[in-house]
């Protein structure tokens, strides 16, 4: 136990730096989703580069991962805090868990609760989400790649 604690402390005091040239890579990208009404009255959802965004716009955040090494990355987890100006919109996939308390705990949104000032709790809503976390089975085998996507609304 003492040993584990020591590891924890050392990790906190000197966070593990990203290894330069690490064979596992992560890239983040963002698109804006627009519902455009064409001249014939049909609506069409388009994803474009977020050159121009205003409150209410829907942003699609895409996180791509790849394990280009020859080693399995065990317990592979991707964590993405919600930017402060973005509200979580909907389910980010079956592998996603969300946090409504600043990342202290994660779970399915439907299972989470938010404390009230009167000591009670209310069911958490999408607006409460502070972090999203994804797991890939638990291990990411060598050579595997994929992406996670979540949708947010500009507050």
């Amino acid at each position: 136990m003492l040993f584990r604690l020591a590891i924890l402390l050392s990790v906190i005091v000197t966070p593990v730096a990203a290894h330069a040239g690490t064979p596992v890579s992560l890239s983040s990208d963002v698109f804006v989703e627009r519902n455009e009404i064409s001249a014939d009255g049909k609506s069409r959802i388009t994803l474009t580069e977020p050159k121009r965004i205003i409150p209410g716009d829907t942003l699609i955040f895409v996180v791509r991962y790849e394990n280009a090494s020859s080693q399995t990355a065990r317990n592979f987890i991707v964590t993405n805090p919600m930017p402060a100006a973005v509200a979580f919109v909907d389910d980010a996939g079956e592998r996603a868990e969300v946090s409504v308390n600043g990342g202290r705990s994660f779970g399915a949104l439907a299972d989470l609760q938010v404390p009230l000032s009167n000591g009670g709790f209310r069911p958490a809503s999408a607006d409460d989400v502070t972090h999203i976390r994804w797991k890939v089975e638990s291990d990411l085998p060598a050579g595997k790649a994929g992406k996670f996507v979540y949708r947010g609304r500009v507050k």
Partner: protein
Amino acid sequence: MKTHIFPTRRSGGRLSSHALLLAGITFAVSASPALARGTLAGTSIENTATATFDGPSGPVEVPSNQVTVLVDELIDPVVGSNDAGDIVATPGATGVVHGFTLTNNGNGLEEFVLTAVHTNGGDDFDPTANQIVIDSNDNGVYDEGVDTIYVPGTNDPVLAPDASVVVFVLSDIPGTVTDGDRGEVSLVAESATGTGAPGTSFAGAGEGGGDAVLGTSGGTDNDNGFVVVSSATIALLKSATIADPFGGAEAVPGAIITYTLTANATGSGSVNGVVISDLIPTGTVYQPASLTLAGAALTDAASDDAGTFDGTGVVVNVGTMAGGASSVVTFQVKIAE
């Protein structure tokens, strides 16, 4: 800039160094976060994800690149009338006040140009423009000489997101309007950045360095108010009855003629300073102390009551008459003998 560190739970209740995964997360927002009307223009939305896993030599943390999106300015003014209903005014009235509230529903500081429109269709008459006044002491009430007269291009309201200002539109009422006529007055606010179809954008014109985008308002909004004319008109009827000295009704010398003057006011308003007067007909002699108003006797002397006989005729100051009211004045003359 904040850094969070997250130990994660691991199933099976077993803790190991592997379980002590770290997700070093960084994010930052370079401007104030959301307001009621949305994230402020110029705010940077920065997103970074972090992967953690256990490599051959221990926990590894891989941050993604940071993607940054600048929030552009949304322009959306809203104008609403503050009046509970029609403003009542009399024909010829000046400086009739309509109040409006202009609110910046956008997410950036924005300047608005104001215009009052008096020549609207669909109403009974056009009030004439007087002036636009800004509620500079912010009490919601027009204070003549205190609130600031609006001069386009000089003191255009500049509103922060969610901020609002009360604007008064002053109008004059033509003297020719009649009771019940309604006239429309509207206030138009236009973004100084521009107006157009919703979604129109102005590159680089947004607060905070981004673009400016017109919201559903198209960068302009307006609302209207009405003034309703309230006035009354007076109709005067005169009738006479004759009583001759012989008990009949013949107009013979010595007969007494009783004149009845009835003033009827009609309309939703009232008429001030109503005076009923009549000259004594030639060939007749006024009967002293015969003057009455509403059945009550009046003296002939001036200044002591509403009625006077001035030697040539009778004058009765009725005063204010509201629509629907009647005033009856009677006096008697004798046909000269």
